[in-house]
């Protein structure tokens, strides 16, 4: 039914997306398809890595760990961005076609006061609104 599953990841907060990672792995096993982990990579040092090159290495390692943990085929893609909080949504959307995914499994926060006051937005909501492929939003 699906060919490839894309999972957007924030390497700084992998603990918060455990359920999405698990769900994506289970789907990958049942359809026997690969999972591609996509991360948006800034140009300035961040908590994950001091440089884009090391960031890519971290993402690679993450993908390999997931493969070993769940016994699935994995790949990854780091998308460069000069201004992450602004470009994140569009870069993720662009990555869907690039990696050739037809299902997205992504974590999303439970809306709270900050959402009601429009102080923060939901990346998952943006993807649901703008992407053509199926999306499984995990909470």
């Amino acid at each position, binding site marked *: 039914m699906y060919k490839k599953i894309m999972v957007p990841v924030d390497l*700084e907060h992998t603990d918060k997306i455990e359920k999405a990672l698990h769900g994506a792995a289970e789907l990958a096993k049942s359809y026997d398809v690969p999972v591609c982990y996509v991360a948006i990579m*800034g*140009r*300035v*040092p*961040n*908590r994950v*890595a*001091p*440089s884009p*090159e*090391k960031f890519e290495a971290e993402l690679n390692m993450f993908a390999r760990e997931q493969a070993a943990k769940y016994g699935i085929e994995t790949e990854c893609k780091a998308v460069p961005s*000069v*201004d*992450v*909080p*602004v*470009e994140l949504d569009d870069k993720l959307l662009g990555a869907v076609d690039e990696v050739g995914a037809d299902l997205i499994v992504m974590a999303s926060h439970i809306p709270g*006061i*900050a959402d009601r*006051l429009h*102080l*923060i937005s939901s990346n998952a909501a943006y993807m649901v609104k703008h992407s053509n492929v199926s999306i499984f939003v995990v909470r």
Partner: protein
Amino acid sequence: MSDDRKQAQEAISEIEDLYDTDYEIGQDNIEKWGFDMHAPVFPVSAFLILVFVVGSLMFPEESKQGLEATRNWIQNVFDWMFLSAGNFFVLFCLALIVLPVGKIRLGGEDAVPDFSIMSWFAMLFAAGMGIGLMFWSVAEPVGYFTEWFGTPLNVAGFTDESRTAALGTTMYHWGLHPWAIYGVVALSLAFFSFNKGLPLTIRSTFYPLLGDRVWGWPGHVIDTVAVLATIFGLATSLGLGAQQAASGLNFLFDIGAGLQTQVIVITGVTAVAIVSVVRGIDGGVKLLSNLNMVLAFLLLAFVIVAGSLGGFFSNLGRTVTGYVEYILPLSNPVGRADDTFYHSWTIFFWAWWISWSPFVGMFIARVSRGRTVRQFLTAVLIVPTLVTIVWMSAFGGNGLDQAADGIGELADGISDSTLALFQMLTHLPLTSITSFLAICLVLVFFVTSSDSGSLVIDSITSGGKTTAPVTQRVFWATAEGVIAAVLLTVGGSAALQALQAGAVSMGLPFTFVLLAMCVSLSRGLYHERQLLQYNEVLQR
């Protein structure tokens, strides 16, 4: 493994250990309500901003007197230090261009630039001094020629020699020296961030000197002072600039230059700046900077052609010879007799550039990944100076020609420095179009300072993270507009001038900060070059 390789390997790990920190970017941050705040830099900065604003509103005259007295004291007592430090920064940057460390690439050997040369340059210029050039390129040289407020080295006004002196001196204030000040800060930040993986915040440049102590209170102090200097520098320029823009708009459209027009200008500039930061560096800041470059080029080309091509080339000659002739005597801090000029112009400018350097330097750093040290300093130091020579020869040259030939208001001297540009344009063809273009440029230059400034404050107050939610940068852009509008409405010019004097006074502590940066950067670059050499040994 041969001995050579073994030694190289040991030396590499020794150097890498020097920059190995356990500090994790964002580890002191609090994430709440759409903010990602460094504690204590964010709350302390916000609190101090509030204290200073409320203080200057409750006691506008007292705070104006107090802060202006502080600024004057600093400028009079430390004049030699500002001037000597400025000279040192120029020599330091020129040395880095020619020394072998110039080959070091920001972001490592394989890093590629994120922006095209033109966009990169447009952003440096728009953040750095676009707005000042609009206002001072006519007023400053004409002011010297007409003996408005002191003359450089006491050269007598209204003479042929004073025309050359006027153009040369203005170039001195807007050429190599300010850009070297920005260059030192920008290169230090870019190097320690992109090559050493330290957070993009001012304190990181002190890591080689202070080690892990920079993550504690010495770093908090440096970052907080940088935030205060930036926000007050930007907000007061916006407030005072709104008065200038309003007088320009009134001059053109006769809509009144009162408080209402000024507040509309502040609101408009802030609104566009907010849209720009929400659209990000690529979709907002870069776009506006490029637009401004095109507009500025059109206006420049027009002023050159309309003012007479022959006149332009003769002024170009004057500017270049004036700059060469006067750069050394004006850089000399010993035995100066031109007190009014020396303190009110040169030292004021130097304190001003230095107090702006954390902001402009950090923004330049952020967009400069992938350039070599040599390319970087050439683009930051030499190219803007060359462009400014052309700009000054066209605008200042035309103004001087009018003043010398007795044409228009400029011939009577500077009545209102903010109108000098428009008074010059009045005596060229198509005045209404060019004046309108000029006012648009002024407004967009305000926006390009405001949006890049908000990004810088956003990054410092989140401990060097550039991934804080968009809400946070909107908060800072809004704060800047609100501070400007409130100060102007409630406290008037006195409150604005008070806080501006406060911001400029930050130039003194930052002079020491910049000198320390030079030491730190020299060590860092020296280590980086050693690393490259040892790596070559390993690859052989």
